[in-house]
């Protein structure tokens, strides 16, 4: 592959993208087809093709093929949207954990802050706080867009507020404090229905307002259905993609800047970083705020997309899930976080569910493997129920066989390659004294 020309590789990628795209369109229910299609993103990233072609291929996959496929099977669009949400979350946490080296186990709290920010004001819930303000609340749908910024600002502010007292503690202690903080936010959401009903407690808030379909007239002219049930999934898909794009851009810019360097230095050796003039507290707060702001934006969007939020969406397991995505992909690596989020989300939403379905189908059909009749399997054995276990096994395997993650950052990759080269050299020279 390496010896072939860029044009050939480009043609190959194009053929693969079009081929799998057609495959998914032809067999919209086939999971393997969808996975093959999703893998095209990886292929585009890994193969050395001209940057312009790469951009064009990504555009074709995400902006053309995916929505088209999604209209025939809206579940795929839902999966892609969820993937996008988790990509943004993973990228945010990646800044805090991967770049600045601050282990945050309560990251989902910022997601919750963003979600509640819009959910409260974009739904009749606000009337329970100010019953007289019927003229103002619930805010009309277009307020969703300003509230994206409000959510970003609120989440960032929460990040700073959490950071201020917490940043004196390091390492394990920081992890424990953030864990506690995550729980505090969830418990607050659960209990702030008395004496003033702010969050509506465990019942949650519904219906959360949605941004208006302001483009409906244009779409109608193009001859596409303006049915909200049809348009909203597409709408949210594109919104998520736009936010993810911004998030990737911001992360990349941070990473390449003096700020990213300062974060990495803090992660490498905090004392030496301070000795080189890096002001610890502002830099750590910036990492917390930046990471939190991504989660805030996605939280607001999540509420609008689901129409409903309650504290159950913001549990500790969610934080751990996002952390696992970052670790799986490769800490500090942007492509890694994207891949980790995609892989885990698809695994959870699709692969395990599909396995359950297939297994059940086999069971009822009485298929036997190596003389063992699958119908005799206990009914509890259902892959979808073992989501966390599969997850755990994957993480353990990763830590044993590929600590750097699937797509480690260039720096990590270099580190490991150089170490390997040094080891090889030592073997060749018979080992130095």
């Amino acid at each position, binding site marked *: 592959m390496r010896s072939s020309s860029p044009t050939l590789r480009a043609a190959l990628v194009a053929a693969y993208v079009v081929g799998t795209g057609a495959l998914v369109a032809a067999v919209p229910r086939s999971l393997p087809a969808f996975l093959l299609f999703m893998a095209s993103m990886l292929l585009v990233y890994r193969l050395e093709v001209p940057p312009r072609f790469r951009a064009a291929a990504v555009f074709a996959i995400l902006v053309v093929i995916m929505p088209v496929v999604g209209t025939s099977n809206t579940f795929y669009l839902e999966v892609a949207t969820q993937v996008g949400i988790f990509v943004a979350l993973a990228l945010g946490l990646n800044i805090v954990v991967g770049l600045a080296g601050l282990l945050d186990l309560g990251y989902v709290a910022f997601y919750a802050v963003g979600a509640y920010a819009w959910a409260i004001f974009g739904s009749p819930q606000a009337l329970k706080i100010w019953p007289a303000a019927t003229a103002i609340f619930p805010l009309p749908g277009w307020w969703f867009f300003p509230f994206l910024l409000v959510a970003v600002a609120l989440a960032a502010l929460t990040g700073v507020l959490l950071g201020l007292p917490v940043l004196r503690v390091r390492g394990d202690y920081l992890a424990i404090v953030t864990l506690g903080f995550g729980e505090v936010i969830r418990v607050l959401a659960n209990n702030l229905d008395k004496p003033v009903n702010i969050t509506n407690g465990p019942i949650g808030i519904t219906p959360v307002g949605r941004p208006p379909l302001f483009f409906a007239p244009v779409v109608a002219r193009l001859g596409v259905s303006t049915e909200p049930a049809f348009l909203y999934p597409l709408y949210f898909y594109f919104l998520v993609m736009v936010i993810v794009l911004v998030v990737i851009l*911001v992360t990349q*810019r*941070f990473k390449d*800047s*003096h*700020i*990213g*360097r*300062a974060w*990495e*230095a803090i992660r*490498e*050796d905090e*004392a*030496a*970083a*301070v*000795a*080189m*003039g*890096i*002001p*610890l507290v502002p830099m750590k707060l*910036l990492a917390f705020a*930046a990471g939190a702001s991504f989660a805030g934006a996605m939280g607001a969007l999540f509420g609008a997309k689901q129409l409903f939020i309650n504290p159950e969406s913001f549990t500790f397991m969610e934080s751990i899930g996002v952390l696992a995505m970052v670790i799986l992909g490769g800490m500090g690596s942007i492509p890694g976080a994207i891949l980790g989020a995609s892989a885990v989300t698809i695994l959870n939403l699709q692969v395990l569910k599909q396995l359950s379905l297939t297994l059940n189908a086999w069971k009822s059909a009485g298929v036997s493997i190596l003389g063992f009749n699958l119908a005799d399997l206990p009914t509890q054995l259902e892959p979808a129920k073992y989501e966390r276990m599969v997850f755990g096994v994957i993480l353990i395997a990763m830590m044993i066989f590929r600590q750097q993650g699937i797509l480690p950052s260039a*720096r*990590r990759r*270099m*580190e490991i390659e*150089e*170490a390997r080269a*040094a080891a090889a050299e030592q073997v060749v020279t018979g080992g130095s004294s």
Partner: protein
Amino acid sequence: MAGLLVVQGLTKRFGGLVAVNALDLVVAEHAIHSVIGPNGAGKTTLFNCVTGFYQPEEGRILFRGEPIEGLRPDRICRLGITRTYQNIRLFANMTARQNVLLGQHVHLRSTWVGAIVASRFTRQEELQAHREAERLLAFVGLRGKGGVLARNLPYGDQRRLEVARALATRPVFLLLDEPTAGMNPRETHDMMDFIRRLRDDLGITIGLIEHQMRVVMTISDRVTVLDYGTKISEGTPREVQGDPRVIEAYLGSRRASGGDR
């Protein structure tokens, strides 16, 4: 003599142990000022107090006439005092170039907003910083090694890189903690030349902790001898060398520790 750095009555305790005891010290501008003494004499503790890592219990530290005791290390670095470490403390998983770029952080004016929008100012400043990094790498003899991870550099190069990183902060006063530790005679000789160049070409005042007497006696303008946190002698290398208290401290400490080696 006003002195670039003036230490007055500095005391640092760790529990019952007095690491530095009522120390007075004046480092003249453009001097190479060595601090020597047996192991545990309080040399590194003194460095740590000057660079803000330890808060001294008593005493004052004046840098260019301004008190700096109690300031955070990053503030002190900004004022122009930078250090290297006895056991090299590079950002091991960052490249040589990134290490030097990091050292320039205090002089970068870009904000986080500039970083996000990649403003023209930020881009130009970054470009300038990269040029400066290459220049500094070349200055310490690491030309062409900017892309190598710090941890993968040979030992001698790591020492040089640590100096390059320190120089990137544009120090007025550079503290070198055993810069020739673990070096062979050839490398040691190069390092001595290099330290002189820092002073002569860049006008940096040097504070030096060193165990190799040959190095100390050759390049120092002034030597301070510590023992058990107390200054027992001070003067030119020749004066210190002939001081009976110094001989006593060195030989005495050997006797006390059971005649090691």
